[in-house]
């Protein structure tokens, strides 16, 4: 099973589409936990493409260099997006590389999770609005 700091493949959802996203994407696991009978994982979205509006990188993105990315089992530099976070059931429709309780881990960096969490707290303090993208409310 995966844990805080693991990079795993995830069908990360979209705001305008119900259920898991249509394709697998690397995410950073920030936490795992339990609610009732459901095991869940809390994950941050990652991306290799961001829009620079001006000279500076938008503050919600934490850059991971190519050399660090390779250490983490990735092919190229990427960003962890502190402004896209999901709580998802630990199931194969959300985590397609799960087999039973096992899953393929593509890298691990628990310290990076702490940095992303700190950045998330900064965004909230700075006035970023929390927008709940609640799959349950669609039912």
């Amino acid at each position, binding site marked *: 099973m995966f*844990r*805080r700091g693991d990079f795993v493949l995830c069908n*990360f*959802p*979209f*705001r*305008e*589409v119900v*259920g*898991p*996203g*249509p*394709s697998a994407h690397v995410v950073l696991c*920030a*936490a*795992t*936990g*339990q*609610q*009732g*009978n*459901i095991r*869940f994982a*809390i994950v941050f979205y990652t*991306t290799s*493409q961001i*829009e620079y509006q001006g000279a500076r990188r938008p503050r*919600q993105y934490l850059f991971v260099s190519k050399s660090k990315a390779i250490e983490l089992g990735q*092919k*190229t530099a990427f960003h962890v997006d*502190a*402004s*896209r*976070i*999901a*709580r*998802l*059931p630990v199931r194969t429709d*959300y985590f397609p590389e799960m087999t039973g309780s096992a899953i393929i881990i593509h890298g691990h960096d*628990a310290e990076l999770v702490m940095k992303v*969490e700190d950045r*998330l*707290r900064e*965004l*909230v303090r700075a*006035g*970023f*609005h*929390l*927008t*709940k*993208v*609640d*799959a*349950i409310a669609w*039912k």
Partner: protein
Amino acid sequence: MGVLTKVEIEQDVAEAAELRAAAQGLTVSAYISQLLRRSFERAPGEESVLVYDHVDEPGAFQIDRDKGEDDESYHRRSALYDTLFRRG
């Protein structure tokens, strides 16, 4: 993927998209759709944290404690995620 439709984009953009899609193991259609869907999630200039919650279950919310994690760290993390994912 849903129903497809045809759009025309500039040749160099299509070629760049093809390379990037291949690097991610996606078709060009899936790649471009994904890019656009992500960009549609926010209005231009919107500063927000998007909190997706797909857990529909009553009961207490509890995250796992890391091996050897002290109370302060655990409570700090729990408070953050409780703020984001608390229901009701």
